[in-house]
């Protein structure tokens, strides 16, 4: 099937926007048109309107890259120190994985690309955890609202299941990635358990958990609290019940469910 000329030109424009090698493009903006085997006249629109075409490249790349720079400042600082941030971004653009019409999905697409490719993780084993931690609070803050869950009560009992607020996430990392900053982007290697949740005002909060509490929060979503505590060899459930009450008041837990 013959591709319409309109489509071939749109592909050439996408190539102009996304392809690497800025210097070569600036020197020869017509090369993307040649690669698409456009007619001589159509190649001319790239070759002869270089400032306008490069404006498109700059604007579109700004749209795609700005959300990454906003969302991953520590990762950018880490890679930037080694002069590798631009290479990372270009590899991401080369993969052509921005498929969603929602602007807010660009950063999650980048995280998904890091998961799929393992980019940089041989050199920096914590890189994926760092990127995830940088995005975590935003994902929690913007988690789609849902109707309040029915049939929950506010005081936990030993036979209850824990029902987290839908926006809440319990995450475990091998590095203390929540302690890093742009000035000190390399995290300490130590097991880290975090609870990310929306408080009652809708702001994202991070709380560091003990390994036992983290495990309890995960297990007790599918297993009665007393049974989960026993499985984890907790000496007493009582302190955990107090903590769970606090977490419900803080907004991290939606409530507690009696066994059916």
């Amino acid at each position: 099937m013959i591709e319409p000329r309109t489509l071939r030109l749109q592909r050439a424009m996408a190539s102009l926007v996304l392809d690497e090698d800025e210097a070569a493009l600036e020197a020869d903006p017509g090369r993307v048109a040649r690669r698409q085997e456009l007619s001589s006249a159509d190649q001319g629109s790239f070759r002869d309107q270089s400032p306008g075409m490069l404006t498109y490249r700059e604007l579109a790349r700004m749209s795609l890259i700005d959300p990454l720079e906003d969302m991953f400042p520590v990762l950018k600082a880490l890679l930037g120190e080694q002069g590798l941030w631009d290479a990372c971004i270009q590899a991401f653009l080369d993969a052509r994985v921005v498929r969603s019409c929602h602007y807010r999905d660009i950063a999650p697409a980048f995280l998904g690309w890091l998961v799929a490719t393992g980019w940089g993780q041989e050199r920096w084993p914590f890189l994926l955890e760092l990127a995830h931690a940088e995005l975590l609070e935003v994902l929690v803050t913007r988690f789609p609202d849902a109707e309040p869950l029915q049939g929950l009560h506010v005081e936990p009992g030993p036979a209850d299941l824990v029902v987290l607020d839908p926006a809440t996430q319990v995450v475990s990392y091998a590095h203390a990635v929540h302690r890093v900053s742009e000035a000190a982007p390399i995290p300490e290697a130590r097991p880290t358990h975090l609870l990310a949740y929306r408080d009652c005002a809708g702001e994202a909060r991070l709380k560091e958990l003990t390994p036992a509490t983290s495990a309890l929060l995960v297990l007790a979503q599918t297993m009665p609290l007393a049974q989960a505590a026993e499985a984890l060899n907790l000496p007493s459930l009582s302190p955990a019940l107090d903590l769970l009450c606090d977490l419900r008041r803080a907004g991290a837990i939606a409530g507690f469910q009696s066994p059916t």
Partner: protein
Amino acid sequence: MEGHGVPFWETCPENLIGDGGRHHRLACAILERDPVLTHGLAMSVGGFDPWDEDYLTDLGDFLVHTNTPWHSEHLCFTSVDGNCLHELLPLLFTREAVLHTIGRARALQSRLPVPLLLENITYYAELGAAEMDEADFVSAVLEGADVGWLLDVNNVYVNALNFGFDPKDWLSRMPLDRVAQIHIAGHKKFGDITVDTHGAEVIDPVIDLMQWTLERLGRPVPVLLERDNHIPDFQELLAERARIQVAYEAALALSGVRHD
């Protein structure tokens, strides 16, 4: 925010559909309270990618819920081979592109619960060898698709600067009877190219172009001040809106139209 005097707002559905959290709830509360128009960013009306049917369903629900009288999209392409470029990229000014875009606009209209408007964009280079000029292209698509026109007077002005034509001559050739809404915004010059930034105050020649258009329309249409970059203090923004309102009323008074 009470007593702001703003008669309506415009929102981009892509930024609200599927989102959640406190800011989302605050935005939705404004849409529940005040009149709203909707304006899409990433439908790629002139592109070739299949419609995202799930998104179109959500969009339809959103349009009904907001009670918008119409929904506008840009006369451009934003995605190629499933890759969303998040930039308004120019269509070819060719007969093939006219027919293709008419077909796409009609198909989109058939999937929406409200009338579709198309907006003229700024362009910084002509994509491919043109067979017609922009005015003929936009007119042919609007007439062929039988859709309303969201006339962006700043885009006309910016294009006139970049391509050296008289914006009033350009507008004189256009089907003004199709204008249902007007956009007005600020722009900025970068080197030899002026860019539609939505990040600066509207300059007098653009307001003059709005007035010139309104006098020829001889009927009131909603005019939206677009500002989504370098957003000033809210009171400053309201003062700018008030200045445009005065110019709007003066133009309609000159054309002898009473409006409420």
